[in-house]
């Protein structure tokens, strides 16, 4: 029996937790497309799910080689969305973490961080450019039209989203600093 849940997540750690909570209730994620999760009923707690941001899109040759390696090692590739992949492993096989040592964790966190930063930068650039156009038009045209308001609203939304991405990724950067400290004494 399939169940479709429409839900939007900004924070991938919360998303991962939610997916694992669903599994604990016997609802296993089977497919993800934009904000649409398809679950299949099964044994409660059968799997452990992990989300991973790949270096390339899931269809890239390097990603395919990596996902094939994972499949050979008991990790199932459930679904993917652009560079994000949804992975799962049978819970009977023990704990499942994709990265287990400081070096590879750090490398992974850097990848996620630069994903957030480039997203923020793009949004803020578009946002500020639109606000700039709005201000320029405000002084150039006396009666500003609805068209100009599009720049104001659009620009404000983009800037807001950009700032949101920056603040969402702040805990990640804190984790990176802690990990870096740890790396001075442990490997």
């Amino acid at each position: 029996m399939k169940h479709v849940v429409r839900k939007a997540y900004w924070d991938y750690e919360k998303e991962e937790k939610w997916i694992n909570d669903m599994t604990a209730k016997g609802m296993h994620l089977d497919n993800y497309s934009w904000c649409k999760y398809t679950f299949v009923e099964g044994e409660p707690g059968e799997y452990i799910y992990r989300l991973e941001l790949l270096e390339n899109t899931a269809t890239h040759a390097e990603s395919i080689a990596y996902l094939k390696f994972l499949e050979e090692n008991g990790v199932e590739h459930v679904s993917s969305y652009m560079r994000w992949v949804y992975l799962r492993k049978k819970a009977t096989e023990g704990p499942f973490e994709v990265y287990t040592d400081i070096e590879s964790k750090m490398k992974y966190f850097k990848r996620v961080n630069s994903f957030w930063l480039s997203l923020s930068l793009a949004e803020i650039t578009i946002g500020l450019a639109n606000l700039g156009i709005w201000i320029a038009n405000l002084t150039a045209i006396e009666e500003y039209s609805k068209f100009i308001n599009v720049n104001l609203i659009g620009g404000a939304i983009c800037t807001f989203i950009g700032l949101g991405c920056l603040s969402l990724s702040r805990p990640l950067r804190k984790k990176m600093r802690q990990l870096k400290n740890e790396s001075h004494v442990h490997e």
Partner: protein
Amino acid sequence: MPESKNALTEVVYYILLSLYTPLHGYGIMQNVKDLSKNRVDLGPGTLYGAINTLLSKGWIDPIEGEKGSRKKEYVITDVGKGIVQAEILRLDELIKNGKKVIKEGQL
């Protein structure tokens, strides 16, 4: 043929040790877990990165898996064996010094 005097990471050391007999990824994970009595549980992402680094350094080689098996197996090279021997000497020094100091401290 030691490449440098730097320490190996635990992950690299145990992967190299595991590959004195050819193994595929899953075999390496299991072997490292057994060797370390469950202390070192290699994540597949960590293992994948380490294997690629070791391949590019020429410390391990890929080999054709068993017939009918499409899983890729790996084996340590002579260069890799030299690295392991140098690391054992280094670890030996660490342990000897550690034990010596602790013994003296107890007296």
